[in-house]
């Protein structure tokens, strides 16, 4: 690349990243808050409104940061190597978005503890926040990755094909992704929830539920995208039908991920421990 071209490219990147950063740090729109409340069937009150806005701002900031970083890296690599692959860019952008999501879930604020630490004795279980099938999706996707890897190895052995790195790397990436997503799902489930005002607790439960849905949907889609990449190794020995399956798999993974991540889920909050002294202000993000 010539010096002039590189300077133009660098300026364009800076402007793009600056515009994205400016948008990501702006106020959260009322429409987004209302959509969140509608999905969780949550009443937004003066007590929990700020809590929800902070959550939406934190997740938006980190997701956009993930996309911006990965986009910049991908474009830089493509410009330097003169190779453009739209499929790789789209999958990479999604991976960046999801990486931002994972970081955001670690950074999301939890309710502040009072002067005397207190806790409800009500167990927090996954099924309180998302459906059983949605909770099982990530391990199932990891299982599919293992099954496809085994099938690929068998097929390649039978056809005496040459070793292919994608047959080994993608299953490992898929399993690592599933492991990280599961660990963060558990961290979200065990995020501190000290006693607080009922509407603050309801908002905290709604946030937890939305986080678990996004992690389940996004994590499953990412693991399944790794599975479709594994199919490249199969393609060498099985011809065109694998490419069709791959295209179908990408579409299904994207649809399933979006469907699970955006699924409505009424916040279930009842019984003991629901009400207590008000301490409900979010702390550090």
């Amino acid at each position, binding site marked *: 690349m010539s010096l002039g071209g590189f300077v133009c490219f660098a300026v364009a990147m800076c402007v793009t990243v600056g515009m994205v950063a400016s948008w990501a740090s702006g106020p959260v729109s009322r429409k987004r808050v209302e959509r969140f409340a509608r999905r969780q069937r949550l009443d937004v009150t003066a007590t929990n409104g700020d809590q929800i806005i902070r959550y939406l701002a934190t997740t938006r900031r980190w997701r956009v940061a993930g996309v911006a970083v990965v986009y910049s890296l991908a474009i830089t690599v493509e410009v330097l190597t003169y190779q453009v692959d739209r499929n790789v860019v789209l999958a990479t952008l999604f991976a960046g978005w999801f990486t931002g999501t994972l970081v955001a879930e670690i950074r999301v604020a939890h309710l502040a503890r009072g002067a005397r*630490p*207190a806790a409800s*004795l*009500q*167990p927090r279980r996954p099924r309180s926040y998302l459906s059983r099938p949605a909770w099982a999706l990530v391990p199932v996707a990891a299982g599919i990755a293992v099954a496809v890897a085994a099938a690929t190895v068998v097929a390649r052995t039978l056809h005496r094909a040459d070793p292919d790195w994608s047959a080994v790397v993608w299953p490992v990436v898929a399993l690592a992704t599933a492991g990280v997503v599961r660990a963060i799902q558990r961290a979200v489930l065990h*995020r501190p929830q000290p*006693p607080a005002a009922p509407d603050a607790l309801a908002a905290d439960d709604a946030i937890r539920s939305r986080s678990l849905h996004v992690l389940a949907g996004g994590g499953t889609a990412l693991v399944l995208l790794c599975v479709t990449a594994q199919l490249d190794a199969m393609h060498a020995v099985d011809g065109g039908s694998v490419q069709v399956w791959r295209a179908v798999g990408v579409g299904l993974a994207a649809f399933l991920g979006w469907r699970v991540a955006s699924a409505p889920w009424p916040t279930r909050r009842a019984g003991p421990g*629901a009400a*207590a002294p008000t301490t409900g202000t979010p702390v550090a993000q």
Partner: protein
Amino acid sequence: VIIEIDPGSPTPPYEQIRGQLATMIATGAVPPGAHLPSIRQLAADLGIAANTVARAYRELELAGLVASRVRHGTTVTATPPALPATEVHRRLDEAARTYVTTAHQLGVGAEEAAEAVRAALRTGSPGQRT
């Protein structure tokens, strides 16, 4: 049902948790068969080490009040015999005397001290909030 930790108390946190849970089980506030939160959840909510909660659960298990099973968590096994009325009164009297001593040490009058108790009863106390 809520449990609290008093950071200023000379009683170790694990003993505070054990004592409150034992009392709640004895009074039926936590009924037999009820699932207790996981060690990790309770530790996160209280902001203490998981080992502290694990020790409290272990002591409760040794006392036969709870049972822990892998993948099923910790459940209350059975309600021990209810405390006799005399024992309830003795414990209440003991707690009241401790409170009065503290009020005297703070130079608080009888009416003000009684009002503080009434206020605490109105807002609820550990193990009674719902």
